[in-house]
């Protein structure tokens, strides 16, 4: 019954075509097709994950070719994690997109195509096939980013297209070098040939490594190759921002880890210590630069985007350690980040839909205006910072533990300071949400932007609005800032459920660690 494996890739792609065709019959039917497809995908991937738990890794060769030549699909603990994550996230975002849109059928076609591409990237055991799925994912993402009306998202999509294509081309070049050196494209086979025949220090293999890593760095958005990412996340529709921030970079980071450790293997890193240093240095720079840039942003979605640059730096840092604990931490953080960052984008979308607030300044006093949305946003932000016992804490804890075990004190310092830096930009947001008074738009024009940062002035404004805070709040709600009522229950539900999961799932990490332990051990052996 291993035929289920290719169906996991085929199902979303077929559903994508169905969504397009259904649009010819009846417009706005895409959501329903996507819903059915996503539910089926969740069931399918859950079943596959269950089999991995029960029987260990599943291997499937497409079209009955013999292994080194045919395309092999492999599901082990890590790829099972990714496909379930992709399916569940896609379904969760759908609940949000029902009301928030976009609503056209081609949009849902691209949506499902993205799910198919990501699933393919996760389970393929063939390097060239990985490139194909990377391009499918990329193309679908370009379309999705450009699906917002107006010029800004179109420019962002174009930039993403150009930079992303350059990255993918470098990746392809790297594969080419590897193929020239070894004559094979199957990942397991490549590892064997590189180790036995070609040698880890061969120039072709080293060049291949550099091209592949830089190509994937672009997709993961590691600083300074992230330039496509903030604008793409910030200008896309909220549901798209959530989906791609949660999945695209995550699966690319998974692919990076997969290629480094399955194709090049730990021995390559040992033979070329500078290669490992390259990964660690890029990661450290990404963590610090991403966080600082996040602090500098005034638009909330851009801030969240830069935050991703920093968080993926953390994941790459963990991957560069070649340590089991850190690797488990990397995957916990990948999953945790996907869930938390995706939901943060959705929460920002809820806020924007309900109040129109999109910049950090406009978040003043949000706690009173939109308690549920602001509360969920704050909880997710704190989880992202890594306050115990949230998921964000557990991931960082494992990574830090791995850094201690390998004696990488510099990276440990980066990991610890990343928590402080994350706190720096989220604390700014939380402070505005809960500890500042909402200034009505009319009053805002009177206050120069520079003065708004001085707390004293804010207090004066607050006092000027009248002391009875409750009465003031009510009048604000009724008169000055009418809440727009088009936030659906589904939109709230996704965000609140995600916030609850971010807090509670930390407890399940121990079981998860046991589940992926064998896979990680094999990966690092």
């Amino acid at each position, binding site marked *: 019954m291993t035929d289920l494996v290719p169906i996991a890739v085929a199902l979303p792609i077929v559903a994508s075509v169905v969504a397009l065709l259904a649009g010819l019959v009846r417009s706005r039917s895409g959501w329903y097709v996507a819903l059915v497809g996503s539910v089926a995908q969740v069931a399918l991937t859950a079943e596959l994950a269950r089999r991995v738990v029960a029987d260990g890794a599943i291997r499937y060769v497409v079209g009955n070719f013999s292994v080194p030549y045919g395309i092999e699909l492999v599901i082990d603990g890590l790829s099972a994690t990714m496909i379930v994550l992709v399916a569940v996230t896609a379904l969760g975002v759908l609940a949000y997109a029902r009301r928030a849109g976009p609503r056209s059928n081609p949009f849902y076609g691209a949506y499902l195509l993205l799910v198919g591409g990501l699933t393919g990237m996760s389970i393929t055991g063939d390097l060239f096939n990985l490139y194909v799925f990377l391009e499918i994912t990329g193309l679908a993402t370009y379309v999705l980013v450009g699906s917002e009306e107006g010029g800004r998202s179109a420019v962002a999509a174009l930039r993403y297209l150009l*930079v992303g294509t350059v990255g993918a081309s470098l990746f392809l070049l790297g594969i080419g070098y590897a193929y020239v050196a070894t004559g094979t494209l199957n990942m397991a086979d490549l590892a064997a040939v590189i180790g036995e025949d070609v040698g880890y220090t061969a120039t072709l293999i*080293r060049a291949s490594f550099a091209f592949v890593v830089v190509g994937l760095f672009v997709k993961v958005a590691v600083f*300074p190759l992230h330039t496509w990412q903030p604008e793409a996340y910030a200008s896309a529709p909220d549901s798209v921002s959530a989906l791609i921030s949660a999945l695209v970079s995550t699966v690319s980071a998974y692919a990076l880890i997969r290629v480094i450790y399955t194709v090049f293997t730990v021995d390559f890193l040992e033979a070329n210590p500078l*290669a490992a240093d390259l990964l660690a240095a890029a990661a450290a720079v990404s963590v610090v630069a991403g966080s600082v840039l996040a602090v500098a942003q005034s638009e909330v979605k851009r801030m969240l985007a830069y935050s991703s640059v920093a968080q993926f730096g953390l994941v790459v840092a963990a991957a560069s350690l070649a340590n089991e604990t850190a690797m488990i931490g990397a995957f916990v953080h990948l999953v945790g980040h996907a869930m938390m960052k995706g939901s943060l984008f959705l929460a920002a979308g809820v806020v924007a839909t309900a109040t129109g607030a999109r910049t950090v300044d406009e978040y003043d006093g949000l706690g009173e205006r939109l308690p549920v949305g602001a509360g969920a946003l704050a909880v997710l932000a704190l989880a992202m910072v890594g306050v115990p016992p949230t998921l964000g804490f557990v991931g960082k804890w494992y990574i830090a533990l791995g850094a201690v075990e390998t004696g990488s004190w510099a990276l440990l310092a980066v990991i610890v300071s990343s928590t402080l830096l994350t706190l720096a930009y989220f604390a700014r947001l939380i402070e505005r949400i809960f500890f500042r008074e909402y200034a009505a738009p009319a009053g805002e024009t009177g206050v120069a932007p520079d003065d708004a940062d001085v707390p004293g002035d804010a207090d004066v404004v607050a006092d000027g609005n009248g002391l009875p805070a409750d009465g003031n709040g009510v009048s604000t709600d009724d008169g000055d800032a009418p809440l727009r009522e088009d936030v659906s229950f589904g939109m709230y539900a996704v965000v609140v459920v995600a916030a609850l999961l971010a807090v509670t799932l930390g407890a399940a990490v121990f079981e998860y660690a046991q589940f992926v332990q064998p896979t990680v051990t094999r990966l690092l052996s």
Partner: protein
Amino acid sequence: MVDFAAFPPAFLVLAAALVVPLLSRRGGHAVGAVATAIVAAWSVVVPAETYLRTSFLGFEVALFNVDEFSRLMGIIFGLVGTVAVVYSYASDAENAQTAYALSYVGTSLGAVFAGDWLTLLFFWELMAITSTLLVWDYGGAAIRAGFRYAILHAIGGSLLMAAIIWHYVEVGSFLFTAADGIAPGLPQLLAALGIGVNVGFVGLHAWLPDTYPRPHVAASVFLCVYTTKTGVYGMLRAFPDGNVAIAYMGGVMAVFGATYALFQNDMRRLLSYHIQSQVGYMIAGVGIGTALGQAGAMAHVFNHILYKGLLFMTAGVVIYRTGTESLKKLGGLGREMPVTAVAFTVAALSIAGFPLFNGFVSKGIVISASHYDFPAGPVAVGDFHTLELLLLVGGVGTFLSFIKFGYYAFLNGEYAGSVEDANRGQTVAMLTVAALCVFYGVFDGALFAILPFDVTNGDVVSHVYHTYTTDHVVEGLALAAIGLVGFALIKKPLEKIGGNVPDVDALYNPTAFYGTRGVVVGVTELYAAVDRLAVGLARTSGEAVRSLGTGVVSIAGRPTELRTDIRNGVLLVVFGLVIALAVVL
């Protein structure tokens, strides 16, 4: 079959603490009393070796672990908790205060049922926090005393934490079962000092008489039970084989506390010094370290909690009815408050170790251990060993000071005006405990049954202990006689000295004050300098970051636009590739 492991007693009490503020005063106190009573019952029936192993932050820990030591602690903590809640209700305690008290009880239970050092430390620190809150709740002078209390316990907790971390590095596990006590060497010293703060080692004890007299009378009843006794338990876990220095420290504490108690006129301050003195007996037992010594220590923990709780309750009733703390302003209350006087008499005879009262039984075990299981030491007089002598002298001091307490509070003179006796709730609480004091004094077998070692079995202990031998009874009566005669002799001089005998805190409070002042002034100046620097730095970097956000950065004074457009983006990718190739090749 009940699954005891699924039912940690600490969490039941902590849950009760959360519920209490939401209920009426009657309902809340009922919940608290029932929860603590359940804990006592649970501790009686829970099978030994029940434990809950789990993993916390990647370390293996035992969230709770039942053996004969923790069982005894659980029984008495639960029992006296119930009585103290009833007493709180009768003494007009607010729900908030009882909630703090219950959280304090809960964390203490967590500490004594911990099966590893990490869990113990966790609850130990929480216990310091909850007890501070309990003190603070009363306001007034209790606030500052609470601060001093908190600081000293924070220091003690930190020392213990250092000891435990060191221990972990040496042993590789936090579990009690992984090693025989704390790892030897510096960790032991750190642990002894850290726990020493909690049990009131001489020199580290000043928080005891400083804090316990200040809060609400019902809060004092809670306080006098849990912190020090949890300390004794912790000491026993840290030094399961005893330690000569600790044993002598116990002896010195017994004498020192009793002596200082003698000079006190504030009733609760007097009682607080006696906590130190009595804990001295327990610490001596722990320090001796044999089966007899440890059994004696645990027996004394059990009995002491009963009579000391009772003493604080009687003192509390006196304060509750008269509003007076000082023995100098009291007198003749025996006729006004017969119930309280009777309860006090029972408690006083118990603590002093008079035959037929429970103190006589357990103090006897410790003294017996100091005689049979411990070297004679430097100052042995005849058949009496050094430690034994210290403990006996402490016993005389105890008689003296309680004769003083009883004499000035209940016998001497007439009380001007009329005072009501204890109210019904207080009476019930006091008489229950008083009855237990007598019960365990007469039927010593009931106490022996719950001790971790059977002191009546020659195979278990080095010397079989019998409570009522002629020698022992004579010894108890002799101490009482010496106490009576002594009090008659020193009554006059004692009145002259009054209550103002300086203790170590007279030394270290000013030292701490001026030292802290010096540090504060120095730090303030330094801080101001750093602050100027930091503000300047923050302003510059703030501007830099802001300009980064707008994409315009000032390079060498010239505003330069730093936008990453598509061209630059691709350029950066190529740039990255070049670097990567350069590094790898």
